[in-house]
């Protein structure tokens, strides 16, 4: 065993036994530092003869490389151990709770309105709106309900106290720009001679005045739905003074009761996502349609619950009919040229039937527990490709 071999053995042992990075560094300095033992040997090479250098050179260089490699290896090992130790010291209880994001929700009425808009978009129906504070001409007269018509009394109408007329800017806070809903640019009836009707506004009792506004505002062909809030002075287990309706209107040439039936069937099948939805039309009376039909939808008992589909029994669902010629004429269209159908259905009721709420009243109480239970995720956007129901 030469000195060099002994030295190598000693150094490698020292490297291996260095327990810390500092100890390893001390070994490195003692061997490869400026005054290190290996450095000193390397320095001796300069004073050797070429022959001697040829023999000693590779040996000394080999020693240096072996020591360098061993130090690097040991350093990596010590680094890893230190990292492991640090990570081990950082251990946390992974069962601790993460901060919960608040759970937002979309109201079932909004969700169902979006569903209906999607279904009817597929049938080519655009969405229309109108004011909720409505004049009596649009709410009644134009819909073939002249003053003192018994049907007016049936509507349990809310009347508004005489108030500054619209358009005399008394707005607060917001800009003076034209509203996007309930366009005030056309709130009043075109027949302002009906002074008595102008005096007292009502809260619209149905979405049907949107029919009038649409027919007066655009040329046929017309296909619209008009969802929105409506109001009746009625409050019990199944009625609230404010509720939601959706109106449908088609005005075109050659539209018949058969088209109405198909449209309602198609819409209800799509909405409830059942092919076995059965409708029963019954002759009825609405002043603004002729002929008029009440539409019942069939149900069957499924798991002890009345479920739409089949025809074990019937429940009243909506009113509909062919738009009365007088209504078409009141809107300035020729009833001999244009005809069509209209229907109106309660949105809250559709929501209850589809999603299984059995009480209407909590719809408008804003109870966060109810809203989270019956509400929908922001991402439950009804689409035809992913399903309109959620």
């Amino acid at each position, binding site marked *: 065993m030469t000195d060099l071999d002994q030295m190598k053995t000693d150094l490698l042992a020292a490297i291996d036994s260095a327990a810390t990075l500092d100890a390893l560094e001390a070994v490195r300095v003692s061997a490869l530092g400026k005054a290190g033992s290996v450095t000193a040997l390397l320095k001796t090479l300069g004073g050797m003869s070429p022959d001697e250098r040829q023999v000693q050179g590779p040996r000394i260089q080999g020693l240096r490389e072996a020591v360098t490699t061993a130090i690097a290896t040991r350093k990596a090992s010590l680094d890893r151990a230190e990292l492991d130790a640090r990570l081990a010291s950082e251990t946390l209880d992974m069962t601790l*709770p993460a*901060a919960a994001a*608040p*759970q*937002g*929700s979309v109201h079932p009425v*909004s969700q169902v309105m979006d569903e209906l*808009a999607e279904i009817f978009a597929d049938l*080519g*129906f655009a*969405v229309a709106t109108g004011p909720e*504070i409505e004049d009596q001409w649009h709410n009644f007269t134009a819909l073939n309900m002249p003053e*003192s018509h*018994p049907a007016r009394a*049936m509507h349990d109408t*809310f009347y*508004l*106290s005489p*108030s500054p007329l*619209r358009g005399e800017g*008394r*707005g*607060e*806070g*917001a*800009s003076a*720009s*034209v509203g*996007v*809903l*309930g366009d005030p640019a056309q709130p009043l009836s075109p027949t302002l001679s009906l002074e008595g009707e102008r005096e007292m506004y009502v809260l619209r009792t149905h979405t049907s005045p949107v029919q009038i506004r649409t027919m007066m505002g655009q040329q046929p062909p017309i296909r619209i739905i008009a969802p929105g*809030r409506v109001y009746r*002075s009625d409050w019990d287990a199944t009625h609230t*003074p*404010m509720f939601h309706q959706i109106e449908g209107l088609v005005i075109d040439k050659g539209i*018949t*009761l*058969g088209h109405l*039936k*198909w449209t309602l069937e*198609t819409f209800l099948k799509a909405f409830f996502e059942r092919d076995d939805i059965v409708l029963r*039309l*019954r*002759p009825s*009376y609405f002043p603004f349609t*002729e*002929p*008029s039909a009440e539409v019942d939808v069939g149900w069957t008992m499924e798991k002890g619950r009345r479920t739409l589909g089949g025809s074990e029994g019937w429940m009243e669902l909506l009113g509909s009919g062919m738009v*009365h010629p*007088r209504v078409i004429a009141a809107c300035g269209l020729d009833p001999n040229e244009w*005809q069509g159908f209209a229907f109106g259905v309660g949105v809250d009721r559709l929501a209850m039937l589809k999603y299984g709420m059995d009480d209407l009243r909590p*719809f*408008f109480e*804003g*109870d*966060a*527990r109810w*809203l989270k239970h019956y*509400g929908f*995720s922001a991402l439950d956007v009804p689409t035809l490709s992913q399903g309109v129901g959620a």
Partner: protein
Amino acid sequence: MKTTLGWLKEHIDTDATLDTIVETLTRIGLEVEGVENPGAALAAFKVARVLSAAPHPQADKLQVLSIDAGDGPLQVVCGAPNARAGMLGVFGPAGAVVPSNGMVLKVAAIRGVESNGMMCSARELEVGEGHDGIIELPADAPVGMAYPDYAALNDPVIDINVLPNRPDCMGVRGIARDLAAAGLGTLKPLDAVYRMATLDPVDGPDAAPQVRTDDPEGCPSFFAQAVSGVTNGPAPAWMSSKLAAIGQKPISVLVDITNFLSIDLGRPLHVYDRAKLFGPLVARRAAVGESVLALNGKTYPLDPSMTVIADDSAVHDIGGIMGGEHSSVSESTTDVLIECAFFDPDHIARAGQKLALTSDARQRFERGVDPAFLDTGLAIATWLVTEHCGGTTSVITRAGQPPLGDKVVVYEPNLAETLGGLKIPHDRQLAILESLGFKVAFDWHVMVPTWRRDIDGPADLVEEVIRIEGIDRVPATPLPRTPGVAKPTATPAQALESRVRRAAAARGLNEAITWSFLSDAQAAAIGGGAWSLANPISEELKVMRPSLLPGLFAAAERNMKRGAPGVRLFELGRRYLAEGERATLGVVLAGENRPRGWQDGKATAFTAFDAKAEALALLAAAGAPVDNLQVMGEAGNAWHPGQSGTLRLGPKTVLAAFGMVHPLTLRAFDLDGPVAAVELYLDALPAKRATSFARAAYAPPVLQAVRRDFAFLVPEALAADTLVRAVKGADKASIVAARLFDVFVGTGVEPGHKSLGVEITLQPGEKSFTEADLKAVADKVVAAATKLGASLRG
């Protein structure tokens, strides 16, 4: 409108079963809301003869009867004082259920004597009030017959929802006519129904009563006939039992005749006691200050819009709505005047609404009674009076003219298909129309029957033929697809609402829908509303909301009261301003923002900056140019004066208000603060300009951006945003962003000042910045800040 099966069959010859009739009624638009058989509960009870009656050995008040209910003698213990041998009564055998108390009868010993059932009183069977003894039946009652069959209690009562357009079906005859038209039988002639030789009015020997109408508008015609020497008393059984079956209490034959005709023929009449009349009976407008004590016992104040029937002394009748108490007939009435008038439907409707008084008469007159039926109606009434009360009739007085006039609709039978969607052969349509009383000329000029005020156009005739033929037979016909490329069917405003709604839900807010109306106090708490209801359902729901926040405050309060730690509600709806209703979004954040936790320690409340974050995020979702918005004050009195603001696009357009709610506002809603809120005025958002689908080309900057920090000492009142904007604008060519990252007050910062740290981002163009470039920019930044009174901190 209620009738019974038997009553219907007085007018229609039919073999149809009850089920068929009920189904048909609903199918043709006379919706049956219910069918009730009052006899069903009594099916087990039988007519029985008491064979013998002996005293009960153990009880003084009881007797032991032997009765025969058709199956031979049975022993029954009975406590009725009137029970005696030979009488006929009603027997309930073991197993029968007593309707009045639900008791199931069984064979049992009563005080030691076996009893096989019960002899029943009228009250026990709910067929009358009598309870002093058991029912006594006439001697000819057939023993063993089911009692409901004997007592004609098996006549099912049918409740029909007659819609406002069908005055004719407010009479049983009208319903029968529709049934006949639907093919269920033959309508009997009216004279046969009433067993009258003629339906023509017959003048009698007495002098004509003096009646006239001074109100041709409200009461175009007033027919009357007097009958003297009548005897009032109970109505005949056929009449009173029908009235009782549909829930009308029989009163006396004179009153019952008018009630019966109102229901049977839809023809309201009134009978006056002539002894209580003075001078001629006149239809006229009520005078100011007049009132009348009506038959329902209430006094109604009248006004000149209402038609009344009055004599020289008093008002006796609210014309066509309700008779007066004063001149009503009684047991002692001997001379009567029968009124058969025509009242204008609109007048009746208005008066009825004003008086809030409904009656059978009003229901019929406001729908429009048959103006051609006055003579016949009067003839039938007079005939019934003389038939049942005797007396001598008068000459008929006919004042005024009922509004007659032939109404002819020019029909086109193909409309059944082109409007109704159902092809119906022309001869079938002809048959339907004729069976409903229309007269159809060869050229389809259709004369409308006088009782069908609702018919005035071809569409009405389509409805008639379709409803009788069967509206359910109309085949579903696909709506053709609209040609061309499908366009968005939602308006930009609706698309916007939908985006904002889902953005809010995605941010953890819960969508509520609250009433559109508030109480006065709630509205006042936020500055008052422009619109209130004249007839609110309650004081709580009276003023149309001028803001969405009150409804959300109230909802938040309810949630907090129920123990919710934190509430994040939003609503998307309209606020109602004097000049119109506007799309608005409200957000209310109450209670805890974050609950206490192992990471963050104590629970944190919502701050004005939580509200600001919601406002900006939702405005961004709405597509508002969020970077260009300015925060300004003046959110309003409802808000915390130092922790609220508005977000504006330019100085005038307010897009949102946000911040903490004023404690006084919260107090009005019973809320413990702090509460943060946002109101977004969606109507104020600028409309999006239409752009093409393709985006502008994108070229990422070649060189890396450089960041530099500055710390400025500024007066405390200086708004941070003012400084940041000034800094950002100091060198528009190179500064692409400026962001506040620190606010410091305290050691090292002189009082009345604050230190603001701003980071700017510089984007080099084609060349990297030199030190000189950066120095120049920094100098500009400092200069801009200095203008605002800021100084660079060392």
